[in-house]
């Protein structure tokens, strides 16, 4: 882990009408760091991720990737950088969705190589090589010609991880990557994420897999009601005397 900050969020707030989902959250992630975000449903974890990946616009705060500002406050209002800058900044991160969102009309291979070709203008040959190497690495090279619907959920999620990695992001977000999977398939996806962690991929993972978060993370954030209730190393979080955190983790450890 280096000291370079890949992502920095300060004073992020987001409301949906009357409901304040994220209240003045600040956090940063260093290169090579694995950060897990845990907390009850409705605590704002996914919204935080969606704001960080610019699928939602935050109401106030700053969002910075590698020192480049994507959004900042100006006269009490949040302004986003221009289209061109945002496009550039978007290349720094990838996102893996809970329900994969693979393109059903594309084969596995095309799902992985299409964005590099269309977005980054990589040659087809190179994109294909890169895609095959990733599929190989994630253990699904034999499914390259299959269509997503022919795959198990675990395989689909691995394809979607490969698709995100194909664009060579600096930081990868996971939005409850195993929540749509049964326990048997969860394992194969977690294994892949662990493998990425060993290769020092910078990751932010929203998860309900407590044991996994504990083993894998450099740091864990516990969110509730739109704020960070507790933050620390896995050891600190799992040994906390914060009642809410204890109660939440306790439910998973029976």
């Amino acid at each position, binding site marked *: 882990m280096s000291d370079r900050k890949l992502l920095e969020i300060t004073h992020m707030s987001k409301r949906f009408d009357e409901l304040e989902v994220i209240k003045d959250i600040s956090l940063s992630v260093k290169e090579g760091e694995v950060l897990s975000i845990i907390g009850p449903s409705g605590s704002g974890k996914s919204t935080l991720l969606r704001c960080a990946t610019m699928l939602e616009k935050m109401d106030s705060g700053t969002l910075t990737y590698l020192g480049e500002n994507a959004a900042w406050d100006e006269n009490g209002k949040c302004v986003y950088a221009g289209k061109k800058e945002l496009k550039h900044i978007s290349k720094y991160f990838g996102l893996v969705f809970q329900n994969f969102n693979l*393109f059903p*009309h594309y084969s596995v291979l095309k799902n992985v190589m299409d*964005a590099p070709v*269309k977005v980054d203008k990589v040659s087809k040959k190179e994109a294909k090589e890169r895609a095959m190497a990733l599929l190989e690495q994630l253990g699904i090279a034999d499914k390259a010609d299959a269509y*997503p619907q022919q795959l198990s959920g675990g395989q689909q999620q691995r394809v979607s991880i490969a698709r995100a990695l194909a664009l060579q992001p600096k930081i990868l977000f996971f939005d409850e990557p195993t929540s749509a999977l049964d326990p048997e398939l969860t394992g194969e996806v977690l294994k892949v994420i662990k493998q990425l962690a060993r290769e020092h991929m910078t990751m932010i993972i929203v998860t309900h897999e407590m044991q996994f978060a504990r083993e894998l993370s450099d740091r864990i954030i516990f969110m509730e009601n739109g704020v960070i209730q507790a933050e620390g190393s896995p050891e600190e979080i799992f040994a906390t005397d914060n009642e809410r955190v204890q109660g939440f983790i306790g439910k998973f450890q029976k």
Partner: protein
Amino acid sequence: MSLLTMVSQLGVAFVETLKIFCLTLLFSLPLGLIVSFGRMSKCAPLSWLTKLYISVMRGTPLMLQLIVVYFGPYYVFGQKITSSYRFTAVIIAFSINYAAYFAEIFRSGIESIPVGQHEAAKVLGYNKLQTFFHIIFPQMVKRVLPPVTNETITLVKDTSLAFAIAYAEMFKKAKEIAAAQSSVMALMVAGVFYYVFNLLVAWVMGRIEKSMSYYK
């Protein structure tokens, strides 16, 4: 008149029917897509205007629309109506009418694509055009094929409405023969023409559907 003569006369007139059918599809499908964009637009006046357009097209008889398009230039601009305008009027009326139906079919198809598809494309860096034409459109086409087949088959039969402005397509010819012979035979034969052609349309559409069945 022998049956063979009748069939050959109707066959010649059927070419006109085919022309209406093909040109209407050619114009109304793309127009329908554009209208569906207007209908889904965030710009309220545009969305409101297309809603009104669709509602008028669906809410009034196609036969009346044919008459309006055909005689409109005379009543509004005092222009003399030429006989060559007859065919143009038929194509215009059919195209704008069918575009309204297709627009609603396309809209339902586009809106049925999960929002996750848009989000995945956005995070991967596809621009809006790429997202629509490479990700959304192909999936939309697959979903709307059954209702589009329905409309297409209806169109084959609707071409007979062109007789309202005395355009010489097959049905008009069949009625003339039937009147001259005091027999409904020609109309029955015309019915067979429509039926057989629709079998062909259904078969072609079935093939297209099948070619897209490799994914869900």
